[in-house]
């Protein structure tokens, strides 16, 4: 399967001629990449996907597949694999019938077709399910059939529209691993639409964070998580504490009530407003007297949420709302109403947009 590259240039989609559902998007996806479109519903990610697939016509802009403009090409000639949110398996065809459908359309020889279908079914682990009808399969199995059908004709680019949304958590995590394996094995380009940031984080080479029809940040999961470009990205991806303050000298930002916070930033103009991102997991809780906190900040805990593997302490420090995540320990004994010293490594504090 020859992976394909995709370039979106100044892409616009407007349904009412006043507001843009997709608002001037530029995006370059290299051949063989796994890119996630991450964003809340209505952010334009699915509309963008539908324009790539050919089910929506762009209002303006250009879509280039392997360097060739395809806006005027109908979907049946684009040769792009697509997995729909509800799978869209044809209910009157068996699993083999469904997976073989794109090959039959292409008038492939019977024996080549059988081999290809066998191979695709083996790839998704459904070799023995060929004669079943979609209604006789579980949600996870249907999802695999949809995937096999999307890759059996070797399209080079596969679009996935929230394909795991309907599955339960364990199955979803299992399918994430499977999808990554298939992506590696085939070397195909994949675009994956999701509103689940964990999914996007764990699977993607790069993430495009959508908000209000624009891509607010395009970067690797690490970049998007630790160096978000905008306030929206910082708050949408992962759990976050966003603190507003004023820049001082040497990268120090003064947060009202909380005190001065040292950052790694070097280009802050003194006196300018600055937005700090402090992820809940960068904090360490220390007992008073035990080295104490660098800044002398204390967290007054209002609520403790137990996630099993971690505890989320929700409270206030120096008048600022703060969420602190600590590993679960049987003996920790954090309680609502408690007051604990906190410290952190300044290297982990990010200036948003800096």
């Amino acid at each position: 399967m020859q992976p394909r590259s995709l370039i979106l240039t100044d892409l616009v989609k407007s349904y009412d001629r006043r507001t843009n559902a997709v608002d001037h998007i530029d995006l370059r996806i290299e051949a063989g990449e796994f890119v996630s479109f991450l964003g809340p519903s209505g952010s334009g990610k699915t509309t963008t996907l539908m324009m790539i697939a050919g089910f929506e016509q762009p209002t303006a802009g250009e879509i280039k597949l392997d360097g060739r403009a395809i806006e005027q090409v109908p979907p049946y000639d684009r040769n792009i694999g697509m997995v729909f949110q509800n799978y869209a398996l044809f209910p009157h065809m068996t699993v083999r019938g469904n997976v073989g459908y794109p090959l039959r359309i292409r008038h492939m020889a019977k024996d080549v077709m059988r081999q290809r279908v066998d191979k695709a079914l083996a790839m998704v682990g459904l070799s023995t399910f060929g004669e079943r009808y979609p209604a006789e399969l579980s949600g996870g199995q249907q999802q695999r059939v949809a995937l096999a059908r999307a890759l059996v004709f070797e399209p080079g680019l596969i679009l996935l529209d929230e394909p795991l949304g309907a599955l339960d958590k364990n199955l979803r995590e299992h399918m994430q691993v499977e999808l990554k394996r298939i992506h590696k094995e085939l070397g195909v380009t994949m675009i994956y639409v999701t509103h689940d940031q964990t999914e996007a984080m764990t699977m993607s080479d790069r993430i495009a964070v959508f908000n209000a029809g624009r891509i607010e940040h395009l970067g690797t999961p690490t970049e998007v998580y630790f160096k978000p470009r905008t306030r929206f990205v910082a708050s949408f991806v992962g759990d976050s504490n966003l603190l507003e303050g004023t820049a001082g000298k040497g990268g120090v930002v003064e947060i009202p009530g909380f005190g001065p916070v040292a950052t790694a930033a070097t280009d802050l103009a003194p006196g300018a407003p600055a937005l700090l991102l402090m992820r809940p997991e960068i904090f360490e809780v220390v007992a008073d007297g035990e080295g104490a906190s660098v800044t002398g900040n204390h967290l007054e805990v209002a609520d403790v949420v137990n996630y099993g593997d971690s505890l989320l302490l929700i409270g206030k420090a120096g008048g600022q709302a703060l969420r602190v995540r600590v590993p679960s320990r049987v003996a920790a004994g954090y309680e609502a109403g408690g007051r604990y010293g906190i410290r952190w490594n300044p290297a982990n504090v990010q200036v948003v947009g800096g």
Partner: protein
Amino acid sequence: MGSSVSRLLRGPAVLYLPAALFLLVFFLVPLFNVAWMSFTEPDTGVGNYIAFFSSSFDVGVLLNTFKTAAIVTLTSLIFAYPVAYVAARYGGAFGSFLLIVVTLSFWTSFLVRTYAWMVILGVKGPITAALVMLGWSPPPQILFTTFASTFAMTHLLMPFMILTLYAVMRRIDATYMRAAAGLGAKPLKAFTSIYLPLSLPGIANGSVLVFITCLGFYVTPVLLGSPRDKMIAGRIGDEIEQMLNFGGASAMAMVLLVATLGLFALYSRFFGLDKLWK
């Protein structure tokens, strides 16, 4: 015994009672009466059936009835399918408008609509006038022809076909057609390989409904059709009104009933498709 009856009367079965009683008195008893008469009037035996099947005229009428029903079913399917398709797939204001038109005609009585066709197709009707204006002189006879009655019956039964098709088509997910296009199927191919098979249960249901209703048509062929192509219901009417031959008429009714039931059995044997696809 008394206690089991009273338990039955308190259970949900009691809810069936009014309908069961009604059907017993007004359907089963008269039906049984007709069957009885076909074997006893005027003499006991199968004489009425022998008379029916040895009359080439009567058998011809029966065959013509089935032929007409088949033609009406086919034509109404051909006309109804696109209407139901547009209403189900594109919906919106136009789809609703289509359905309202269909439902309005569905609510109008067969008799009223039949008379309407008499006016439209008549010698002084707009169609004939239009043909004369276009220079077709003398204008062709339209009313009292096979064409007129077939045409009118198609119109009368089309709402059944459209609504039955629509009910099935509305449940066909629009993403199936997108998926087919994404997999490389051109629109016509996507239609024949995906949409048409998925709408088959609607085609089967609608066809049986129209066919069986058409078999029993009486008024329309009598009022609009040619006297030569009589249908069996009209023939039964003649037998009673003009010959007062209740036994013979009952036998014809029974033949029609058995033929219809046989057809229905065939249908449910071969077209239990809707169960297969949820």
